[in-house]
Each structure stands twice: as structure tokens, then as C-alpha cells.
């Protein structure tokens, strides 16, 4: 189909693009070890002083903790809700099913920044305080479509006969769900948890509108800092985030396979 020469050039090209796509992340990690007091790349000297400087800034630690809590809350809620919705959509035929499905997928097409503003005005209108629960709620909405999708995909892969067989052998509905369905959809369940967690932990657009100076998630804290300063401190903070993300990625690739998650074989 394609000659070796073209294949080789395409390979080189793909390699260059891959390199460019991870370049900014590499730059951040390398720059975080600079010994200089200003951002200059390649870095001058080697030191870990910016890590110590970052660790002494309490607001970053607090924001990191807050982000973890929000991501944990919203990924759990989104995955549980997603499982329930996916079960209803896949296993039952009812009036308005298609409409409901479309509605649950709607947040996917709404840019985060618009949703953030809408949620802000909604909360203000009903005098609901902006706290971490508000942020977590926002994140549940934006991650729910992914949760539903992952779990729907794994549900579709189960032969309904398995559930029927269990039922005919005397298992009640809860037992069927707990003993048959849940173990079978575990990959989708895990994918949904991890993906929702990452999505929530990385989100700037929604959280930007919902956080207050006292309750700021880490990406928003980074954004606000960059907006006003330009020094290597933030590269150290970012590098920690990057390393954490790559650990999560490695675990995910081992257990699930990234490509499969996105529908690529």
C-alpha cells in the first residue's frame, strides 16, 4: 500500500509531533530545577530550591489538598450516578430514553467556561454559597457524560443472558447486580473513576468561577499566580502535578490501556 520511504517519513513526522506535544511538559519539569531567580530556559545550574520555596507556600498545599478532595468527591459521585444512568439507559426501554440520553450528554458540548459562568449565576440567584461542594457539583456535571459513556460501553459488552441466568437460578436483583454486573463492568467503572478524577483535578474553566480566594483549587491557584508573577516557583508546583499525572497514567496504561479508553484499538 505505502512504500517504505513514505512509511519512514511518516514515522519520523509522527515522532516529531509526539515530541512537540510533550515538549511543554518536559520544559516545565526541567525548568523547575533551575538555580536562577528568574525563568530562563535552558535552566542555569541545578537546585531544588524552588521545590522548597513552593512547599513553604501554604496556599499551594491547601489548594492541592482541596483539589484532591474535590476530585475524589466528584469522581465518586459521577461514577456512581453514571452507573445508575447507564444501567437505566442500556437495560431498559422507556419513553423519552433517547431524549434523556441526549440530555445527559449535553454538558460535553458546552464549553466549561460557559458552564462555569452559568453555575456561578445560578448559585448566586439561589443564594447558595460558593464552596468546595459547589465546585464538586460543577465537576460532577462535566464528568458525568464520560462516566456514563465508559460504563455504557462496558455494559454493552456483557451478554444479558448472564444476568438472566443468575436471575433464573434464584438471585434477586441486588445480588445479580453485585455478583454479576458489577464485576463485569469493573474496567469501565475504574476507567470512569480515574478519568473523572483527572478531569476534575485539571479543570480550570469551571472552577475559575466557583472558587473564592479562600477556597481555590490548584489549577486556579496556578493560573492566578501566573497572571501576576513570572518566576520558577510555579514550575516546581507544576512539575509535582505532572509527575503525579504520569504516575496515574502509568497505572492506567498497565491496567486498562489508554488507547482503548478512547476507542482506538
Amino acid at each position: 500500500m505505502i512504500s517504505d520511504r513514505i512509511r519512514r517519513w511518516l514515522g519520523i513526522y509522527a515522532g516529531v509531533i509526539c515530541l512537540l506535544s510533550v515538549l511543554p511538559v518536559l520544559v516545565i519539569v526541567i525548568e523547575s530545577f533551575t538555580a536562577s531567580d528568574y525563568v530562563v530556559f535552558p535552566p542555569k545550574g541545578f537546585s531544588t530550591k524552588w521545590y522548597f520555596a513552593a512547599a513553604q507556600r501554604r496556599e499551594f498545599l491547601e489548594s492541592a489538598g482541596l483539589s484532591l478532595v474535590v476530585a475524589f468527591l466528584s469522581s465518586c459521585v459521577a461514577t456512581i450516578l453514571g452507573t445508575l444512568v447507564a444501567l437505566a439507559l442500556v437495560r431498559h426501554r422507556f419513553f423519552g430514553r433517547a431524549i434523556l440520553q441526549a440530555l445527559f450528554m449535553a454538558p460535553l458540548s458546552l464549553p466549561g467556561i460557559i458552564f462555569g459562568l452559568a453555575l456561578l449565576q445560578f448559585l448566586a440567584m439561589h443564594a447558595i454559597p460558593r464552596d468546595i461542594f459547589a465546585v464538586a457539583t460543577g465537576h460532577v456535571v462535566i464528568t458525568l457524560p464520560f462516566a456514563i459513556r465508559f460504563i455504557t460501553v462496558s455494559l454493552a459488552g456483557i451478554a444479558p443472558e448472564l444476568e438472566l441466568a443468575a436471575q433464573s437460578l434464584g438471585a434477586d436483583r441486588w445480588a445479580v447486580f453485585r455478583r454479576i454486573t458489577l464485576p463485569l463492568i469493573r474496567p469501565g467503572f475504574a476507567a470512569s473513576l480515574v478519568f473523572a478524577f483527572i478531569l476534575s483535578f485539571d479543570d480550570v474553566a469551571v472552577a475559575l468561577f466557583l472558587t473564592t480566594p479562600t477556597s481555590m483549587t490548584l489549577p486556579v491557584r496556578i493560573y492566578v499566580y501566573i497572571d501576576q508573577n513570572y518566576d520558577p516557583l510555579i514550575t516546581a508546583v507544576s512539575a509535582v502535578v505532572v509527575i503525579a499525572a504520569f504516575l496515574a497514567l502509568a497505572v492506567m496504561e498497565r491496567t486498562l490501556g489508554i488507547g482503548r479508553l478512547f476507542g482506538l484499538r
Partner: protein
Amino acid sequence: MTLGLNSFYDYGRMTGIIEIFTLKNYQRLWFDSYYLAIIGRTFRLAGITAIITLLVGYPVALYLTIASARAKSWVIALILSPLLISVIVRTFGWAIVLGKNGLLEQFFSGFGIADIHFLHTEAAIVVGLVNVLTPFVVLAVATSLQAMDQAVPLAATSLGAGPWQVFRRILLPLSLPGITAGLLITFGLASASFVTPAVLGGSQYKVLSVIMYQQAIVLQNWPFAAAIAVTLTLIVLVVQGLQTRFAERADYRAAPQ
């Protein structure tokens, strides 16, 4: 939950600090030359970004269809992994590369071209956006190329078609659904992107999402911010409508075969 979302979304439209129905905000946004320029700039940025992202991503998707299993998993991992890292971190990485005394400026001064600046230009934003959006194009195009019967290009080659002909007459038409989907997805995402234009564009470069944020948070003019949000949503919805139309057309054409 989504119903709730839609309803307060409607609300956002006309919630005034003074609760009187008015079209003043839209008049200001759509007929004032200052804001019209911003709308135009948003469109231009999204358009340029979509086209460049497609050009960057298409060959990678093509490579995925012919690569060995090992090379393929590497490329997929490297292309998709940035998706797991916050946009703000990646964008700041570009700010370092493109910024004052950054890699690129040093590269150019090595050739004797000093006094060239990238940060806070439209080109910098496009670079950042293309980087963020490339995975989406690769995914869209690769999925449509995978759906193709792998024997088709082989058959064309055996009938005497050269590589260029195979590409133009076979691969390009068959991946058209992926191309349109990729273009429209990137256009939609780019037009509503906030972090990248805000960080790489500097305070002088304004697109809809940036002025929306300023109106809402800095100036506290929520009705006007809501008008901007509705306008942005309209743009995104129109783009999505087009996407669905194209997808349906592609299905229709594929059906008789």
C-alpha cells in the same frame, strides 16, 4: 441534572442586576465595532487553529494505520498523555519556550535574528492551542481511517495507482467524515478556549472567552457576561449542528455501498 443546567442557563440570559428585560447587552455586543472586532478575532483564531491542527494531526493519524503495534502504542501514549495534564501547566510550558529569552528566541538569535518576540502574539496562542487540540484531530481522523477496509488502498495500488493517487482518491475521501469532525471539534473548542489566549496572548489580546471572564469576575457585569456566553454558545451550537449534518450526510453516502 442536565435539565437543571439548561434552565439556569436560560436564566443567565437576562438576569439583570436590574431585573428588566432588555436587549441592550446584545446590542452592545453585536453592533459595537470594538466587540465586533473581538468576535471576528475569536472566529479567526478558531479557524486558523482548526486548519493547522488538522494539517498537523492528519499525518499522525495516517501513520497510526500503518505503524507496527509497538510504534503505535508509543505514539498513542505520547499524543494522548498531555490530555491528562492540566491545560494551565502545558500552556505555561509554552510560555517558557516562546517567552523572553526562551528556546525559540535563542534559536533565532543564533541565526542573527535578534529582537523577535513570540509571547503575546496570535502565533503563540495558535501554537498553544494546536498543541492542546492535536489529540482530538488524531482521534477523529484515526477512527475514520480505521473504519475503512484496509484492502481498499491495496487494491488501488495493485491497479496501478501511485501513493499520491491513493491518498487523494482513496484515503482523503474515505477519511472525510473524520476530517470534518476533527475540524469542527477543534473549531468549537478553540473558540471557547480561555486559558491559552489568556496566558499566551497577554492583556492586549482579547477573545470572547477572555472578555467574558473580565466582565463577570473583574467588572461584575453579569448580564453582559451572560450575553457573551450566549453568543459563544450559539457559535458552538452552530458548529455542532454542522457536524451532525456532515456526519449524517457521510452515513447516507456510505449506506448504499
